[in-house]
């Protein structure tokens, strides 16, 4: 069966520090991978998606970047965090088709 792992679950970082959130998927090949950010109590905003290794599409210009060094690994990064980067980040995967989306457990980032 397929599983998705996302870490760390909670992160507190000072402004200007770097960020790395990691997501890995098991049990499937060539998944579509996504990073979402969620504002408190609201819907999800798509940040990046990837249809294959090294293929990253950005939906929102910002302080963050994403990379897909391996088929089932997706990394969200920042060189210098801003206060506005605080939020709940979700990694997700899907296969081509009707589009059911499977989410990781999420990472809560607080930038101080």
């Amino acid at each position, binding site marked *: 069966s397929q599983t998705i792992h996302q870490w760390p679950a909670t992160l507190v970082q000072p402004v200007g520090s770097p960020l790395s959130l990691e997501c890995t998927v098991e049990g499937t090949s060539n998944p*579509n991978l*996504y990073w979402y950010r969620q504002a408190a109590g609201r*819907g*999800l905003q*798509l940040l990046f998606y990837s*249809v294959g290794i090294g293929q990253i599409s950005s939906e929102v210009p910002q302080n963050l970047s994403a990379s897909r060094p391996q088929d089932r690994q997706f990394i969200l990064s920042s060189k210098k965090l801003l206060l506005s980067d605080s939020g709940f980040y979700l990694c997700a995967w899907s296969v081509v088709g*009707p589009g059911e*989306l499977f*989410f990781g457990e999420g990472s809560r980032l607080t930038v101080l």
Partner: protein
Amino acid sequence: EDKVVQSPLSLVVHEGDTVTLNCSYEVTNFRSLLWYKQEKKAPTFLFMLTSSGIEKKSGRLSSILDKKELFSILNITATQTGDSAIYLCVLVFLNAGNMLTFGGGTRLMVKP
């Protein structure tokens, strides 16, 4: 401008009430419409709707899609406090990346 609009934004009911959550959209070129329930962390999948007029049902929850009028509803009967959550409506688009657009969510609170 938002392509997927959910209403109401928030809702407070008492246990035993029936609620109807709405999701309206503006586009027609999508694969499917998904409903998710989000409590404290990652959203959990509820329904996938691809055909108009066919009701999907799971216990006290049901959902239907109307492609002519461009909306979907999620019904919850005999609500329980455990139904308290944010309910997310998502459109899955017809492209290689399975682009998804989330609605803003409806926050449901069920009081005892």
